[in-house]
């Protein structure tokens, strides 16, 4: 620690050694945190470079506006609309299911459930998003469609968009429930008291004050749920089938963008072939849309959070 009699705050060997150790550690930690940024760069560069190769063979116009996708056939067309359409339809069904159910669950957890009930039920709801998606796919294909949906819509196909949408809805329900719950719990108690003091009943306080006040968080949760739904692969691959046809009939099979990628991956797409490159074009397209949605979702939350 320096010779006896030397004031401790003057630099000495061991203190500067400790400083060096700290600096090295800091550099190491910094490099670790740069990994996530590097990963993002790698993602975009990889997707872009292969997509560029793809678009030397396929026109962007055809890709964005074409209604035929026959990537794996002899005569190849690469219009993304069938895949995009299927992705949007299944995600819309998912959100149409998850929003009311999730919001109701969120309202229940936040405004009506007692402490103990809440601590029991919230983890149960969140378990739903922890189940591996192949299990959901299995359930959708072998139970949901044959046992449930066929009773309501007898003509429904083995693979159909409705089952996919519903199952993805169950998967993303916890996103809506959890974020809405957080948003509503963040509403100051003051506002509820003011509403009660004006003669409001509890449901009026909840529906007229709490939910509107938490709306930004609720909307954000729906947007994020939609983005998550769009990226879901296995449920669509298992229960939706591989039929890249532009249709609005939800009882039919349709292929989403992630399901197409899964199909190619299941088959054999040698490096450098157009099928291989199409993976990246579709992947990039999917990523851009979900990234835009996530961006909007986060922005929506922030803009309203300022209000408090």
């Amino acid at each position, binding site marked *: 620690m320096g010779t006896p009699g030397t004031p401790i705050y003057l630099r000495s060997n061991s203190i500067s050694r*400790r400083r060096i150790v700290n600096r090295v550690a*800091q550099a190491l930690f910094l490099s670790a945190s740069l*990994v996530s940024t590097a990963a*993002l760069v790698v993602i975009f560069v990889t*997707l872009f470079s292969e997509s560029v190769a793809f678009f030397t063979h396929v026109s962007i116009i055809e890709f964005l506006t074409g209604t035929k996708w026959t990537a794996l056939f002899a005569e190849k067309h690469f219009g993304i609309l069938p895949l995009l359409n299927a992705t949007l339809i299944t995600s819309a069904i998912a959100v149409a299911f998850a929003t009311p159910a999730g919001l109701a669950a969120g309202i229940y957890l936040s405004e009506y459930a007692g402490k103990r009930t809440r601590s029991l039920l919230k983890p149960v709801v969140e378990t739903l998003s922890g189940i*591996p*998606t192949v299990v959901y796919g299995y359930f959708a294909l072998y139970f949901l469609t044959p046992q449930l949906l066929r009773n309501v819509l007898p003509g429904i196909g083995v693979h159909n968009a409705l089952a996919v949408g519903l199952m993805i809805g169950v998967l993303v329900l*916890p996103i809506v429930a959890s974020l809405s719950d957080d948003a509503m719990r963040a509403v100051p108690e003051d506002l509820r008291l003011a509403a009660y003091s004006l003669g409001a009943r509890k449901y009026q306080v909840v529906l007229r004050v709490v939910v509107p006040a938490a709306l930004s968080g609720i909307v954000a949760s729906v947007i994020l749920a939609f983005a998550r739904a769009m990226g879901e692969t296995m449920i669509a691959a298992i229960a939706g089938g591989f039929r890249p046809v532009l249709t609005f009939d939800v009882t039919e099979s349709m292929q989403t963008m*992630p399901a197409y990628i899964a199909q190619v991956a299941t088959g054999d797409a040698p490096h450098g072939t157009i099928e291989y490159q199409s993976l990246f074009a579709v992947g990039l397209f999917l990523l851009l849309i979900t990234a835009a949605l996530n961006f909007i979702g986060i922005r929506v939350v922030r803009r309203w959070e300022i209000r408090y």
Partner: protein
Amino acid sequence: MGDQVLSAESLSVRGRSATVRKLFDGLMPVLVGVGVFVAVAFLVSLLLYVFSVGIGRLSPTLVTNYPSANPQEAGMRSAILGSFFTVGLSALICIPLSIATAIYLTEYAGGKWWSQVLRYNIANLAGVPSIVFGVVGLGFLVYGLGLGRSVIAGAFTLAILTLPYVTVTCVEAIRTVPDDQRFGAYALGATTFEVVRYVVLPRALPMMLTGGILGISRALGEAAPILVISGLLFIREDPTSPLSEFTVMPLQLYNWISRPQLAFQQLAAAGIIVLLAMLLALNALAIYLRQRYYRRLEAG
């Protein structure tokens, strides 16, 4: 409103619309409870269905045998080992990275502008669909770096996929350490690294490990990225090195699910039970660790 004769009746429910409102108020908890009920109902029916189909097919061969065209003989051995190695390796990559990132974000770069950028990037990474990770892994790791369709390529991909989640958990873990503790150490002339090593990490580590375990449990269930990286191969041997070809449990299940024969459906259900059991065990471990950590916190 103020002119009415005041009596007990006038202070009780007034008018027809008021009665309606009172009724609705009583109904409301039931209406919103439906949301939770639906969620729980799906979960329960899913578990019941899988159990009912698969329970009969459970047997040791499920775990010891390799996949086979014959559903009676087929097993998940290669997939289990593949999952074990791939996810294990990804955890070895992801957890230290996450801890280091979390430390940097909270202890070193706390208020500075680039910590905002870093957080933003981590949030963006969290939003990338899992299959896109697979596609990028295929292009960059498998072919770009020439790692081939190997365990290590899968491990790296899963590591980056779970990185945001585990990092956020680690940040939360570090945040539970009160500032007083830090200030005490700084006041004695400690460097930031020493504060991290002697004050922050010991207290935050259990919670971080819990987060790591939960990250592992997520990675175990991922099929899509591995599907792209490894393809749907018929693996009939144990993975021997990081460069081996491999498959993972969810993928093996996908394989069986895709076959229409009833025997394979049952096989898939049995495999699902095994996978869910593992996830349950992992989550139970995480909860157990969390309880132990809290008890230590009370005592310490």
